[in-house]
């Protein structure tokens, strides 16, 4: 039987490093394995014995790209354990800082990591020589996100101003004026981004996905909501462990998540969009429509458009929050620990990030569980690769290899969350 080998030794432009192997025998894809070397178990162990209010700062160190996601999930889980619910301006500021992180993360991925795939460049460095204005636009957009995180978080890497109950200090309204001007530019730049990426051509891929995201009755989800899917899932965050399971798979030290009742699922911008299109602001909805998207977008290669639509939304939402902001009387509410287990799930740029903490009577963390978004998408990425390679066996090997890498990047896998390094091997018999 004729067999062939496709091998990608190193998957560039995925945050981190890992390994992916695709095996092909004859005309059949026989195996797809995404190998991840290390789950965030170190941090879970590190959290045990620490005080409840240390969780946001410790978990922020898991990832340099999305520290806010970890801080927010940690805060919500601890507050849930302590019976505290944050409302008003502090809640709004949390949404605002999350907008900043989405803008940073999405701009980085759209411009520097994913666009080169579509435009035929090996990387952003080469793309920048021919498309300097686009790359500069992406960098400035990203910086606008950084500025939000810097203003609210104290600094953009491992922000230090977020705490259980709120913030250490909150800005006065006037401190937002300069930022608002830059965000108006950013919203226009994000609209330009949607128009730009909509001109790319997209390989075909459509599978029977189960999209999972938060859904909130009043808003596009960041910090709160129920976990819902297009296949009937509709649960409170505290029911997560009853519905999802993390499993060790033989080819990987990392854990893969799946739905207990069904199987793989899909988290991230596209899942949020498909389950919450009606909650996007009018300007974001209009941007999506003008790019040719309906309220549901299933082709993961078009995730770059969806991510760009979310860029528009995040800029728009940030401006709305700043406009309505009134400084709260206190930057945080008091949170007293109690013996309890708390659950938190928020929408990281890459999808839902779940935390669970059990506290003792002195507020010491007895047990911690953290499920990053990337480990939840791993199974779906493997399945995408399997189907994509199977239906493209006729195309040239190096082109197939390129598109496989592109297919992995559809999910913007932040391997530094799921593991340290991902080395992608795409090989076959």
């Amino acid at each position, binding site marked *: 039987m004729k067999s062939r080998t496709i091998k990608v030794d190193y998957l560039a432009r995925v945050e981190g490093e890992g390994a992916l192997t695709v095996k092909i025998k004859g005309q059949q894809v026989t195996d797809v394995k995404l190998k991840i070397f290390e789950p965030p178990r170190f941090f879970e162990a590190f959290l045990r014995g620490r005080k409840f209010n240390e969780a946001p700062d410790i978990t922020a160190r898991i990832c*340099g790209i999305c520290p806010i996601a970890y801080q927010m999930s940690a805060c919500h889980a601890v507050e849930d354990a302590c019976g505290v619910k944050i409302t008003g301006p502090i809640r709004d500021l949390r949404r605002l800082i999350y907008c900043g992180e989405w803008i940073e993360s999405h701009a980085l991925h759209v411009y520097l990591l994913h666009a080169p795939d579509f435009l035929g460049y090996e990387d952003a460095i080469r793309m920048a020589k021919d498309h300097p204005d686009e790359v500069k636009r992406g960098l400035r957009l990203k910086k606008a996100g950084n500025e939000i995180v810097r203003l609210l978080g104290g600094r*953009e*890497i491992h922000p230090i101003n977020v705490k259980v109950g709120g913030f250490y200090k909150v800005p006065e309204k006037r401190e937002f004026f300069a930022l608002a001007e830059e965000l108006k530019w950013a919203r226009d730049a994000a609209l330009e981004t949607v128009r730009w990426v909509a001109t790319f051509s997209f390989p075909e891929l459509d599978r029977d996905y189960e999209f999972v995201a938060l859904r909130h009755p009043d808003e596009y989800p960041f910090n709160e909501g129920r976990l819902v899917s297009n296949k009937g899932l509709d649960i409170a965050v505290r029911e997560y462990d009853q519905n999802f399971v993390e499993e060790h798979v033989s080819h990987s030290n990392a854990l893969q998540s799946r739905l207990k009742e069904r199987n793989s699922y899909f988290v991230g911008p596209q899942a949020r969009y498909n389950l919450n299109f009606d909650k996007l602001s009018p300007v974001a909805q209009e941007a999506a429509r003008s790019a040719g998207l309906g309220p549901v977008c299933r082709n993961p290669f078009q995730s770059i458009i969806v991510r760009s639509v979310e860029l528009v939304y995040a800029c728009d939402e940030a401006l709305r929050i700043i406009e309505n902001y009134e400084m709260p009387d206190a930057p945080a509410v008091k949170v007293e620990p109690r013996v309890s287990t708390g659950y938190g799930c928020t929408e990281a740029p890459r999808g839902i990030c779940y935390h669970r903490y059990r506290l003792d009577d002195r507020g010491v963390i007895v047990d911690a569980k953290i499920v990053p978004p990337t480990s939840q998408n791993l199974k779906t990425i493997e399945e995408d690769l399997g189907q994509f390679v199977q239906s493209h066996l006729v195309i040239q090997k190096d082109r197939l290899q390129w598109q496989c890498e592109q297919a992995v990047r559809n999910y913007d896998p932040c391997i530094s969350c799921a593991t340290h390094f991902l080395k992608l091997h795409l090989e076959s018999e």
Partner: protein
Amino acid sequence: MTAGPSIVVIGVGNEYRSDDGVGIVVARRLRERFLTKITVLEESGEGAALIDSWKGATWVMLLDAVRSGAPPGTIHRFDARAAQIPTGFFHYSTHAFSVAEAIELARSLDQLPPHLIVYGIEGENFAAGDGLSRAVEQAVESVVERAATEVREALNV
């Protein structure tokens, strides 16, 4: 701020990734030594943020862990204005779009600072955890000395 050249020292890495934190450790030592005479920043190594971090500076030094195959503790030094940084060299920073890519992207966009010195310290252990391995710990002192000498010279220009 001083009226002289604006000097920025950037420690890159993640101190919860063992030797990946060595750049941060060295940067903190330089901060103790030079206090307000220079700006010392700590960065995760995410490339776009790095390009921002040196904007406006006239003299920049980057400190990061590397994994090139040399013995742990080996000190590499590059003058980024004089030659390209070998890509792949800094892949053991936390992120793939990292120090070398940031420098080369900035070069493409004509956004490199006038002076850019890069120190790479060969790491051994990049697993999750805090603290440096022995060989890397031993290299810290001499990186600090070499870097401090260069900073002093830059301050006297």
